[in-house]
């Protein structure tokens, strides 16, 4: 079966990977295989970290039945790009941290990474990141979705995301009355 190498992987890393098995092979729901750096996978995904630590990684391709090949390719691509990027000061945990620490802005490459995705691919990636426990990737993809909502009226947001308005006219009016303090300019 064909093995798709991550695009951002450097040649040296690849040689080492083949010798020492520094990579893990992941299998998408449609049977495609992808190779990703073990270190990056363990660092970026709590689920993969758990599988690696627990020895439940299959050398012939660990089954990820919930994730399609397009989304998995993006996940692997993200991991490899992440492994090759120099973390900015913002990503290195600050001296003050509490569990409600606000989300750190996406790096330039992360922005580009999600910007090129189609609408469907973005949401598939959100689901994959959620399934794999990839907190940073979730933050970056959710941030992209927020960007798509910013500055838009409820009508415009419904249009962009195909949200069905299931309120009656009366209910909608009631909400606008109740929350008049937030709808004051409409």
């Amino acid at each position, binding site marked *: 079966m064909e093995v798709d190498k991550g695009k951002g992987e450097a040649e040296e890393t690849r040689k080492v990977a083949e010798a020492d098995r520094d990579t893990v092979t992941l299998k998408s729901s449609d049977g495609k295989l992808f190779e990703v750096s073990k270190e990056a996978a363990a660092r970026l995904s709590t689920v993969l970290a758990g599988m690696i630590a627990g020895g439940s990684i299959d050398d012939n391709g660990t089954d990820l039945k919930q994730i399609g090949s397009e*989304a998995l390719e993006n996940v692997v691509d993200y991991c490899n790009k992440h492994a090759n990027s120099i973390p900015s000061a913002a990503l290195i945990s600050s001296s003050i941290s509490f569990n409600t620490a606000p989300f750190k802005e996406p790096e330039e490459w992360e922005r580009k990474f999600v910007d090129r995705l189609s*609408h469907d691919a973005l*949401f598939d990636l959100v689901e994959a990141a959620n399934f794999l426990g990839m907190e940073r990737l979730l933050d970056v993809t959710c941030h992209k*979705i*927020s960007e798509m909502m910013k500055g838009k009226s409820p009508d415009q947001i419904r249009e*962009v995301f195909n*949200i069905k308005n299931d309120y009656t006219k009366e209910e909608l009016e009631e909400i606008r009355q109740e929350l008049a303090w*937030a*709808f*004051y300019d409409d």
Partner: protein
Amino acid sequence: MSDPQPAANGGSADLLSALPDALLHSIISNLTSRQAVRTSALSRRWRELWRSAPCIDVDGEEPIRSREQWDKLEDFTTNLLMHHIAPRPRHEIASSTVKILDIECGMDLPLLDNEPRRCMMVMAPGLTSLWLYVGCSPYRDGVLLVQVDSLVREVCVVADEEACEFDAMSTMILRELFAKLVNVRALELSCFAKVVRMYVYNDAQRLLSLTIY
């Protein structure tokens, strides 16, 4: 993934509303709070989501130029904090343009539940003055001020009830603290790296404990 439905903006399915609450909270938290509240008009799925989103950004969408704009923002903030039901103890206000935040939680406003809550403020780099009136309000359990590492010179906390505590920590750049504590029972200050002078006015003489480290 194969989706047989035709593509209008990438598919006619509502992929966004199908996401779990936790992710929608995260998405809402990146919006300005006014827009966050307005998501309740999208559909039934969205009606109550904003109320429990973990982060509130009260940043004004435009710079405040008039008294009228300020009054609107103040009214908005007060309503926001009253209607927001994030699990305690997190009410976070991330603000970079608001200079003075004056939040009044008056006696006449109804309690949403009987659960006492703390008001927590984080990351307000532009804040210079903070006035909190903590009455018989959702924040009767106290106020927690975290990392307001900025120009805050003046903090005034007025509490009508005895059961109020005021904590401030990690206020790295704070140089002078003017704290007027009315009926505040305990004051705890930590990590005040650069505080040169501190004035604590305790009008009602009710302060039972003062911890500074």
